[in-house]
């Protein structure tokens, strides 16, 4: 039990050190997940204690940058949860079509798979031309990957299946070019995407959005932080704008629940009222 207590202190100190030195704030993240990632990284890094890791990251920015990539979960997929993208196609896209200009914020976009999915969907629904997609993430290195739009070819089979299940109108292969074991997404999909860094924990409101997509980001936050982010989303959406969460995330317990109505409960699609 002694070790466990010390380990808890060490993890809290490490998180504090990251915040004080680099400004990234993990203090209100769910502890179980962050602990798993710190310990997983410790065994990989060859360091023997979390305190050593803390010392190292304070004096070695490169080490920190690598650790930062490991602390946040950056696992994504094209058309992840096909039924969600099908619902966006059927319910949200037709509403967006009525707007002369459409502003979309993809918060916590990670390596961009879902952003490209959204771009494809909007193009097929005739909305893309009038849209601007702001794709943001806390992590520069991850955004860089998203910007490049290069993905491993071995994922494409699953993505193609997802695309079909999500109601795709064309052939998924039309949207990428294969080079050896990599695929490059069609460059024209990027035309209306603005990639930029934004920290949901510390940065502010993001304009008058028609649609905010933030899926599987809030699951890593504690309830207080979730609530602040819901407030941020409420202030960033125009009246009637849509908010889309991950399939296991909910607005139900939030102090901002009254600012939204549920459009499709199962797919976690809400609308600002």
């Amino acid at each position, binding site marked *: *039990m002694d070790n*466990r207590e010390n380990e808890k202190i060490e993890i809290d100190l490490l998180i504090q050190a990251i915040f004080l030195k680099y400004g990234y704030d993990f203090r209100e993240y*769910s*502890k*179980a*997940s962050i*602990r*798993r*990632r710190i310990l997983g990284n410790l065994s990989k890094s060859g360091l023997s204690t979390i305190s050593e890791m803390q010392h190292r990251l304070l004096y070695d920015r490169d080490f920190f940058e690598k650790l930062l990539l490991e602390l946040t*979960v950056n*696992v994504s997929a094209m058309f992840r*949860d*096909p*039924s969600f993208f099908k619902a966006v196609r059927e319910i949200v896209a037709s509403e967006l079509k009525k707007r002369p200009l459409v502003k979309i914020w993809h918060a916590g976009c990670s390596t961009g798979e879902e952003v490209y999915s959204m771009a494809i969907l909007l193009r097929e629904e005739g909305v893309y031309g009038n849209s601007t997609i702001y794709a943001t993430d806390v992590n520069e290195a991850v955004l860089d990957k998203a910007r490049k739009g290069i993905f491993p070819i071995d994922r494409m089979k699953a993505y193609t299946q997802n695309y079909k*299940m999500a109601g795709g109108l064309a052939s998924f292969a039309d949207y990428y070019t294969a080079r050896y074991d990599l695929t490059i997404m069609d460059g024209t999909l990027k035309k209306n995407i603005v990639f930029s860094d934004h920290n949901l924990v510390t940065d502010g409101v993001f304009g008058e959005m028609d649609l905010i997509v933030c899926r*599987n980001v809030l*699951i*890593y936050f504690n*309830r207080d932080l979730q609530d602040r982010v819901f407030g941020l989303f409420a202030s960033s959406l125009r009246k009637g704008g849509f908010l889309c969460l*991950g*399939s*296991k*995330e*909910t607005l139900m*317990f939030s102090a901002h629940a009254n600012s939204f109505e549920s459009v499709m409960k199962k797919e976690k699609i809400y609308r600002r009222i």
Partner: protein
Amino acid sequence: MLNSRKKYKALVIGASSGGWAALRKVLGALPRHFPLAIMVAVHRHPHSDDYLETSLDHECAIRVKQADEKEVIKGGTVYFAPPNYHLLVEDSHTFSLSVAEAVHYARPSIDVLFESAAYVYGDRLMGLILTGANRDGAEGLKKIKAAGGLALVQDPTTAERDTMPRAAITAANPDHILPCDEIGGFLKDLADNPRGLTGKDG
């Protein structure tokens, strides 16, 4: 020994191929007011819904549901990890979900659930590995035992697929290896009479 004097708070179960039939047997034997919280990670298709939880809830006396994010963990309830998410236990006895990398090609991963539960519940935890064609859960069960918890494994000769129970037996040196039909009764006795239990070295 300590092992014989403690009261268990929670049970974690891991299952893969053949798991639903085994779970039906194990959970079906438990009473409505089973005192422990039960958390289950079972390998399943990422796009599946909660149909299996709903039908188990109908069939079993004990309450069965899919775990919700931040849900408070209560005794007398069986919580399943949602498809395509890892399920983790927080210090505050609530659930966290994660879409982090698959472990042993699995999300939910049994190891992820077991390790986080072992950290929170320590020697108040029981872990059970059922049928499966994979090594997931072996490392997690070892951690449960190392934290002072009780390690249980389905007798591989009664498992539809024996890879997972065999891997768990090799890795964790479990306290009890039980035929599938006897697991439910064993858990029930244990919950009714925790002092009556002795581990094999207890």
